[in-house]
């Protein structure tokens, strides 16, 4: 007679069923609409939440095990980097500007995404969706944390790292990513998924992380490379969640298509504006460059993005509305952005400078149709002003776009000699924009964007009332240390002196 023995180990499929799908239940004290109050107002129709597919089939117990292992490896390398003075292995301390921008502007975005996915894990009724969002929420908080820890070592030696949280809240250039995430977080759950899960994580993330992490590797920054690797394996899961979500919405009901398309148009444009910072970093801030912004856009935008939208065409999705305007901007945007960062660098918690002759030769090779014609003459004139002892600081301050909150530095799609200026009136007030894309976003939901906290406007209101010194104090910027030209900065002097100590007998 055979004994019936209980099976010791669950199969992967059984485990996933028990530890994910079976965690849900049907409520009886309250209706489903009361328990999930935000899932219908955006107009997305879902008929069967069980159709949600989880390609990863990851359960929470395995998740913790994998993540803990990654953390152990990450902190071992970060410790070694600190103990071996890894900061002296970077190409040049001017590289640190890219890290300062990353810490002030992007890491807080990871944290914001963590908050957003925690909310989505609560608001979506489907269990598979809930668990995937909860895991991504924890991932995003982990990314923010590992980035802050990795970069804290540079804070021991260099200026501009010490107040990234204040910068995130108050700095004028940080309102660009902050307003991006605030916009997504204050939207409904489905729009959030298109904004962060699809547009940011799927369409644009490669343009952010690949150039950034390769830039770190090219410039000897092992701390940043390490947090990049530690985050990379999570990104594959995030991309899958974003893509799964959009397919799910489109397959559930044909009426969802126009709503989803509207969000793709909006969030592609917002994301594209955000990536202007990355392009500027690639073209101007890396002492050892990886590829130009134009080249990166060719691979990750045109090729990969194009393939994605061809794939989604079977659902009726077309490429985002701003796609052609984006392509026209590629050869100009990094130069226009950098000219702004330079002339307002009395108000930045990172250093910038005029590109060297070598750098300009590289730029004209990478941008043969635009750099010499439009941008080299401006840098040449700025060099002349600097050499005359009157470096250019633009005290006129910047006009900002009501939607993306970036200074309106970008030109007309078909005329690189004219700044693109758009305005509209709503309830008797004037509002200005950097592009048709940003104006469309405003006009679709004006009541949302009239509340934009525009930092240049705030500078002239209480509590600052136009006092530049009080403003610097308020954003925790230490003048003469954190801001201004890299040439002649304390970071430059210290790095050169320390590297000399490390490599010679003086």
């Amino acid at each position, binding site marked *: 007679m055979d004994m019936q023995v209980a099976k010791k180990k669950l199969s992967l499929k059984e485990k996933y069923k028990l530890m994910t799908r079976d965690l849900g239940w049907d409520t009886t004290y309250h209706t489903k609409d009361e328990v999930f109050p935000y899932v219908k107002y955006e107009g997305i129709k879902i008929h069967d939440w069980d159709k949600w597919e989880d390609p990863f089939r990851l359960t929470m117990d395995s998740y913790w095990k994998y993540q803990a292992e990654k953390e152990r490896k990450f902190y071992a390398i970060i410790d070694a980097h600190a103990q071996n003075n890894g900061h002296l292995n970077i190409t040049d301390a001017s590289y640190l500007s890219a890290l300062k921008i990353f810490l002030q502007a992007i890491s807080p975005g990871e944290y914001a995404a963590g908050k957003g996915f925690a909310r989505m894990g609560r608001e979506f009724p489907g269990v598979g969706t809930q668990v995937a969002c909860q895991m991504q929420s924890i991932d995003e908080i982990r990314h923010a944390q590992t980035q802050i820890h990795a970069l804290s070592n540079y804070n021991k030696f260099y200026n501009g790292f010490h107040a990234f949280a204040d910068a995130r809240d108050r700095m004028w250039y940080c309102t660009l990513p902050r307003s991006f995430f605030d916009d997504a977080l204050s939207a409904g759950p489905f729009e959030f998924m298109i904004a962060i899960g699809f547009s940011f994580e799927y369409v644009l993330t490669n343009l952010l992380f690949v150039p950034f992490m390769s830039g770190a590797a090219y410039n000897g920054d092992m701390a940043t490379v390490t947090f990049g690797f530690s985050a990379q394996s999570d990104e594959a899961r995030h991309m899958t969640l974003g893509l799964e979500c959009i397919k799910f919405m489109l397959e559930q009901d044909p009426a969802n298509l126009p709503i989803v398309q509207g969000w793709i148009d909006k969030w592609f444009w917002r994301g594209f504006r955000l990536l202007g910072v990355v392009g500027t970093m690639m073209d101007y801030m890396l002492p050892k460059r990886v590829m130009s912004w134009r080249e990166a856009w060719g691979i990750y935008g045109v090729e990969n993005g194009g393939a994605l939208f061809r794939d989604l065409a079977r659902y009726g999705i077309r490429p985002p509305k701003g796609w052609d305007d984006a392509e026209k901007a590629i050869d100009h945007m990094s130069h226009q952005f950098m000219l702004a960062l330079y002339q307002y660098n009395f108000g930045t918690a990172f250093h910038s400078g005029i590109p060297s002759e070598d750098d300009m030769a590289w730029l004209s090779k990478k941008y043969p149709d635009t750099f010499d014609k439009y941008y080299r003459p401006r840098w040449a004139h700025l060099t002349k002003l600097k050499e005359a002892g009157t470096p*250019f600081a633009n005290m006129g*301050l910047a006009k900002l776009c009501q939607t993306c909150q970036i*200074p309106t530095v970008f030109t007309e799609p078909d005329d690189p000699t004219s700044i693109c200026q758009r305005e509209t009136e709503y309830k008797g*007030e004037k509002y200005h924009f950097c592009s048709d894309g940003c104006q469309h976003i405003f006009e679709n939901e004006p009541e949302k964007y009239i509340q934009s906290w525009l930092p240049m406007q705030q500078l002239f209101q209480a509590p600052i009332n136009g006092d530049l010194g009080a403003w610097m104090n308020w954003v925790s910027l230490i003048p003469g240390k954190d801001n201004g030209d890299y040439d002649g900065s304390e970071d430059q002097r210290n790095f050169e002196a320390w590297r000399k100590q490390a490599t010679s007998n003086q």
Partner: protein
Amino acid sequence: MAVTSTKPYVAVPRDLVQNFNGKQIVYVCWDHHMLFATPLMLVVEPGMLLGDMLENVVKPLIGPDPDSAAVDLTQVAWMKSGQPWVPDLGVSLAANGIVHKEQLRFSTPGLNSLLAA
């Protein structure tokens, strides 16, 4: 729909003119002069004479451009909110109809050292 929301939703702009201690915002752009990364944002009193604003506020700010010495701001062609416009330099901004967050543009055809290079 002015915003996608679960219930009626009315917002308050963060940069109303009453927040500026008696002043207002005016944007000024010198067309095709791209040394200036964006139009200049000025915070000035609505009672200021337009001629005074050009002479005392705008002129010093455009000084770094190599064409600035050759420009007579009383003679240039103007646009206001995208339309051709003839200002009265002897009266105030308010009397010229320049409201809060007004965009002014002036152009100086033929004068453009940094683009001609």
